[in-house]
């Protein structure tokens, strides 16, 4: 049997088989089941078959006639071996066949069927072996030629150097680099062949390392300035004391690397410096990158956020609802979502969040990108606007109420006053009545009718308790008058609170306004409070003096009441200090007391309308918020410094220039 792929045999014989000669195909059957034989009958068919696929053997039968030898000739050296089947007894044809290039001849008699198989087998094996050898040689030649082809064609400049650093041979790329021909370079020292930078220390080191048989590091050589060219230089030993020098131009790569580096640095600068906080998260919500603004807003130390879960900045119960969660889980995008983060120092920060999923080119989710801002300032402004709106609507209400109360109060007060006057007059009549009674009592000779009338008068006076009535009527009237006075004040407070200024401001002496107000209150305070005044010289301030006095009155009364409160429990002496001075383009008026102080928990509410810590009926709660409004109308500010039982200092600041509306402090 033949090993390897199936054996293909081509048989060329006449169509009609000679009954005297056994069929060749049958004989070939002895080659085994792997042998395939094909039969053709003429030269054309033969050519066709041969061109279709390779054959291992061709058997030509002399029975074909004259064509037989012609076919043998035609097949000479062109492919598979030819075995000639002689049909004549003499060997003329056989010899001729050999001459024409047949590999073997056999006589086609009956018992030669066996021989045919053997001969066929031998020829096939020889043919196959020859073919393999040819194949191998071809490959070897190709391999031998390949390196040279590569060396000639590659863009890397290659040169073989001997131990003296002389060029033995160089490829065309090297010749181009050196600006000389390959011929010229042979035998030239490397130092003179290439530009100066190539004779530098780096290259020498690479060459020496190669000499030692080490894998030296490649070195980078730069030639020229603008534009500069960069080369990667390496060396390798190639035996027999020779070195291979490889020079690749990497200018473009170097340039790209520089650009890339610059671009990356630029992007980093952008991200580092942007005003918004930027975070990149992995799919589990851990921080992979945080820019400095993010660290600042969240109160984290530089570089400390990486690896931390973003959720650790939010209270436990809010973590599920965080929009970031939805971005991480479902790739949802959000703009303008709000949340409150808790910094490590405990401070709560309101933040406005935008987040989007982070995906790579294939659409794989890498996590999320979160941009956020600190909303503290905005929230504060919102609160202020809300406060102002509240005050405005309360103001309108107050104005309406005041209007309605004013008129009735006008005549109630006037009438009460009048009745008091009437009472006074009636009191004089009463005195006369008393005198009359006395006169009758001491006249023993008064007529009886007169005496009787006087007696009835006495009884009546007794019955209605007239003297008490007269007395108490006066008291009732006086108390009512006081009540109506109080209402008047409340109405004034309300009106001042809601007042829309139409009149103009006037230049005033603030010290005088403060002093006159203090003097009014002094009569009330003089027994329990020591008042100190420290007035600095102040320029005149354009203002509404009435409104300022109301503010001062309010602050003084508050101070007095705070002192009362403390003195009642601790005893001691009450002190109020008034201080005025110039500051920051305006005047500052301080009213300090050593009273019961203001608890820090209520400090930011004391300017709210209707907020009061005083008992019912004592304070209306309108004083400080009204004062706050009035001071604000002047473009100034009202502030307080205080603590529980540590007294309080209220400071009114008014600008000298009314176009400036902010206290720079």
């Amino acid at each position, binding site marked *: 049997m033949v090993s390897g792929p199936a054996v293909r045999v081509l048989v060329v014989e006449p169509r009609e088989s000679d009954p005297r000669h056994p069929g060749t195909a049958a004989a070939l059957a002895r080659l085994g089941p792997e042998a395939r034989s094909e039969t053709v009958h003429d030269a054309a068919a033969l050519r066709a078959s041969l061109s279709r696929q390779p054959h291992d053997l061709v058997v030509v039968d002399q029975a074909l006639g004259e064509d037989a030898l012609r076919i043998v000739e035609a097949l000479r050296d062109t492919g598979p071996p030819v075995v000639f089947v002689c049909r004549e007894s003499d060997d003329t044809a056989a010899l001729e066949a050999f001459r024409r290039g047949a590999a073997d001849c056999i006589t086609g008699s009956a018992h030669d069927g066996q021989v045919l198989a053997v001969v066929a087998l031998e020829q096939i094996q020889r043919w196959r072996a020859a073919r393999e050898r040819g194949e191998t040689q071809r490959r070897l030649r190709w391999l031998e030629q390949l390196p040279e082809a590569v060396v000639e064609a590659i863009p890397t400049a290659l040169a073989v150097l001997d131990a003296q650093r002389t060029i033995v041979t160089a490829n065309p790329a090297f010749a181009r680099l050196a600006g000389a021909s390959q011929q010229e370079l042979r035998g030239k020292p490397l130092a003179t062949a290439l530009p100066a930078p190539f004779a530098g220390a780096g290259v020498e080191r690479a060459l020496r390392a190669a000499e030692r048989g080490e894998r030296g590091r490649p070195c980078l050589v730069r030639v020229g300035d603008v534009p500069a060219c960069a080369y990667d230089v390496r060396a390798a030993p190639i035996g027999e004391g020779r070195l291979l020098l490889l020079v690749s131009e990497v200018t473009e790569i170097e340039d790209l690397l520089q650009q890339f580096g610059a671009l990356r640095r630029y992007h980093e600068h952008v991200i580092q410096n942007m005003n918004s906080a930027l975070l990149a998260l992995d799919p589990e919500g851990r921080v992979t990158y945080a820019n400095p603004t993010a660290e600042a807003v969240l109160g984290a130390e530089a570089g400390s956020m990486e690896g931390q879960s973003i959720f650790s900045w939010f209270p436990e119960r809010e973590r599920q609802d965080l929009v970031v969660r939805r971005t991480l889980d479902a790739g949802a995008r959000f703009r303008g979502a709000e949340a409150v983060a808790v910094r490590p120092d405990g401070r709560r920060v309101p933040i406005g969040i935008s987040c989007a999923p982070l995906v790579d080119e294939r659409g794989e989710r890498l996590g999320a990108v979160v941009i956020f801002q600190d909303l503290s300032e905005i929230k504060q402004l919102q609160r202020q606007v809300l406060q102002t709106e509240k005050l405005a609507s309360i103001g309108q209400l107050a104005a309406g109420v005041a209007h309605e109360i004013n*008129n009735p109060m*006008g*005549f109630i007060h*006037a009438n009460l*006053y*009048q009745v008091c006057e009437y009472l006074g007059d009636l009191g004089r009549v009463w005195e006369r009545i008393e005198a009359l009674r006395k006169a009758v009592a001491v006249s023993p000779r008064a007529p009886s009718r007169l005496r009787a009338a006087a007696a009835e008068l006495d009884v009546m006076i007794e019955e209605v308790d007239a003297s008490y009535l007269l007395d108490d009527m006066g008291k009732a009237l006086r108390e009512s008058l006081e009540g*109506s006075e109080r209402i008047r004040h409340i109405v004034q407070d309300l009106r001042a609170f809601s007042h829309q200024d*139409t*009149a103009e401001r006037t230049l005033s002496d603030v010290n005088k306004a403060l002093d006159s107000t203090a003097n009014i209150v002094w009569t009330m305070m003089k027994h329990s409070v020591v008042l100190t005044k420290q007035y600095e010289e102040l320029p005149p301030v354009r203002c509404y003096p*009435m409104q300022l006095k109301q503010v001062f009155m309010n602050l003084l009364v508050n101070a007095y009441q705070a002192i009362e409160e403390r003195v009642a429990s601790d005893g001691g002496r009450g002190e109020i200090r008034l201080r005025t001075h110039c500051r920051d383009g305006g005047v500052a008026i301080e009213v300090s007391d050593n009273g019961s102080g203001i608890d820090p928990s209520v400090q930011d509410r004391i300017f709210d309308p209707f907020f009061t810590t005083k008992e019912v009926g004592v304070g209306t709660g309108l004083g400080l918020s009204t004062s706050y409004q009035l001071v604000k109308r002047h473009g100034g500010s009202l502030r307080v410094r205080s603590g529980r039982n540590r007294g309080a200092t209220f400071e009114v600041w008014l600008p000298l220039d009314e176009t400036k509306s902010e206290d720079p402090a």
Partner: protein
Amino acid sequence: MSDARAAVLFVDDEPRILSALRRSLRREHYEVLTAESPARALALLAQRRVDLIVSDQKMRGASGLDLLQEVVRRHPSVGRILLTGWPEEIPAEQLRKLGVRVLVPKPWDDAALKEVIRAHLSAVPPAPRHG
């Protein structure tokens, strides 16, 4: 026989204020007249002599200033006083132009009101009598 006393006309749309004013000024030496609206006031002024008019500012219909403007036009010798709960809302310029001498705030102080009226009447000669 016509009254030789000075006549002061009070104008206010609140009748109880008028009666309280009347009560307060009972003992004064001038005749107290009242009108509940600017229209009635003007009608009264057309009928008889008035030396001084004291008017409320905020009334139904016309304001005190509007009335006083009319008074200046028709009866320029009548004195003019404005009685109002909102003194700050009256522009000083307008007061001066109308020759309104005084602004009395509401609620008023009886003594102060009496003083103002007395001062005004003594300063201005009585208006010519007619009718």
